[in-house]
């Protein structure tokens, strides 16, 4: 039951990760190469989590109310900041990143305040759960990428590590999101499919459409209608997968046209200085 609940939480949080989209660079420097191919490093991340949990366990084992373990906690914090798992969660499963910090903070507060052992153990469990949830989200993302076929191999899914540095990369990501929406619809997950469509529109397409509409407003009008009405309506009406796929293929073709137009406008952009 607990495992099922945890999986549900991971799924929900990961769905949020997909919705929110990726970050590109990191406060502590560029993410390592491992993040770009995170699916090949799940074992490394698992080791990192094991190590962090072991370190955490050692602190709790030697803890007694009133005992100063601030140095050990500091070392744990340092370890968390350094491990590869950190960068992977931060980039690939962003919504699970802040909860880990919150759980660390809760644990840190408890030991600093000399809380009773049961309280410290509860905080320990909460932190362990947060770390496992982050790992679960990474595994889920890795399995989705592996199942994604040729296009997903070319372009990581929303929420995953990607170098979305220009309009062409963003459009590729949108095309990829649409593929994933069809896959979700085919699996009977209408809600996820609708969320993917809505979020890729709001967080990705919406950032591009300004310049695109200056170039070919009719194209944008068509895509707006497809994102906002035609595709979601087809899904809500329970249309056959083939019909949904046909609609998505039409949108992807228009997005490819949009990509060409946006590349043409690159030179039109003025200089900042």
């Amino acid at each position: 039951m607990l495992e099922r609940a945890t999986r549900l939480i991971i799924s929900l949080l990961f769905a949020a990760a997909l919705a929110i989209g990726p970050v590109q660079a990191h406060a502590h420097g560029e993410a390592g190469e491992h993040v770009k191919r995170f699916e090949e490093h799940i074992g490394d991340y698992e080791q990192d989590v094991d190590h962090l949990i072991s370190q955490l366990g050692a602190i709790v084992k030697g803890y007694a109310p009133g005992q100063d373990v601030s140095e050990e906690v500091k070392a744990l914090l340092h370890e968390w900041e350094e491990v590869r798992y950190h960068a992977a969660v931060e980039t690939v499963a962003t919504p699970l990143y802040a909860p880990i910090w919150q759980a660390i903070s809760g644990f840190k507060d408890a030991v600093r305040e000399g809380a009773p052992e049961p309280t410290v153990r509860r905080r320990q469990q909460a932190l362990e759960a947060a770390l496992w949830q982050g790992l679960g989200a990474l595994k889920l993302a890795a399995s989705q990428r592996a199942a994604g076929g040729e296009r997903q191999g070319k372009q990581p899914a929303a929420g995953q590590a990607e170098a979305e540095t220009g309009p062409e990369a963003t459009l590729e990501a949108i095309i990829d999101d649409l593929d994933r929406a069809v896959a979700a619809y085919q699996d009977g997950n209408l809600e996820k499919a609708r969320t993917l469509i809505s979020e890729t529109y709001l967080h990705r397409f919406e950032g591009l459409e300004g310049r695109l509409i200056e170039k070919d407003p009719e194209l944008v009008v068509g895509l707006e209608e497809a994102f906002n009405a035609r595709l979601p309506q087809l899904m809500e009406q329970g249309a056959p997968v083939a019909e949904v796929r046909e609609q998505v293929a039409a949108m992807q073709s228009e997005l490819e046209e949009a990509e060409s137009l946006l590349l043409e406008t690159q030179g039109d952009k003025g200089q900042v200085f």
Partner: protein
Amino acid sequence: MDRRAFLQGAVALGLLGPAGARAGRSRGSGPGGLSVEALPELAGDLTVYLGRGEGGLYQDVMEAIRKRSPKLDLQVRRGPSTSLANTIVAEARAGVRRADLFWSIDSSSIGLVAERGLTRAMPAGISSQLKSEFRYQDWAPISGRVRTVAYNPERVREGELPDDIMAFADSDFAIGWAPAYGAFQSFVTAMRLLEGKQRTRDWLRGVKARATSYAGELGVVMAAARGEVDLGFANHYYTLRLKQGMPDASVAIAFTSNDAGSLVNASGAALLSPGETPADFVRYLLSREVQGYLAREAFEIPLVPGVAMPEGLPPLDEIDPPDLDLTRLAEIRPTLELMRDTGVL
């Protein structure tokens, strides 16, 4: 502002024609604000959390500053502004500070960080560069966007439009809106803060009865242009963009007066760590070059006096926005409850 005077002015400014719009692009680099040439060279380490949006134009600004500042080791982390604000708060709770500066696309995300005391006072020398109504102690607005009524002049006569946003709830207009869109929710938050919960609830119910929902505000403006609706509520730049690409599109903009319907919201920067570099970076963002670039390329409203407005908008002092602390737009939860209660979300 006299809305009708504005409508005439908008036509005169070229809102209805591409030639005028192109002329406006060259006007954007006006003489307002300090030039980067007068600013100190940026140097040292700087980590910026940058809200995504505006089609990557903010990222272009970052890259231009990076290129201009070889002694600056600039790290940029991009993400949705709200997500970055939550991360800053979570990191601070854990006793860690990774970002030196937060450039958010909306003031409400800045508010989330500021209300937890995580921002540093903005030096007076920076705030004083801004127009007086945009001076805050904890952050610096960088560029603005104003709420508008985008209407189809073939379906609605100019004189029929109320200049009171609350009056739309009692009208017979077919209205387009995008309730799931962040800018719309900020607008409703402003209404709740200015008019109170009950009046906002009544407004939402009244408009809902004749509203068509769209996923984004460009969709709202397009719906007005196509005549699917008589009018819609949207940020100004969607109409300007549409007119740039489709000069004959049947849509124009109007403003309400001194209420949430003419809210001017802003992107903004907050200092998270001490030192000259983060503060100087904000000075770069307020330079006439960056302000002009955002006005020309993103159609955003420059907030430094003397920098030309995007083509199609009147001067900011001719718009009559409500008096509201923009960081209070972070109080989104009661707004969402209200929108759910009324079935709008």
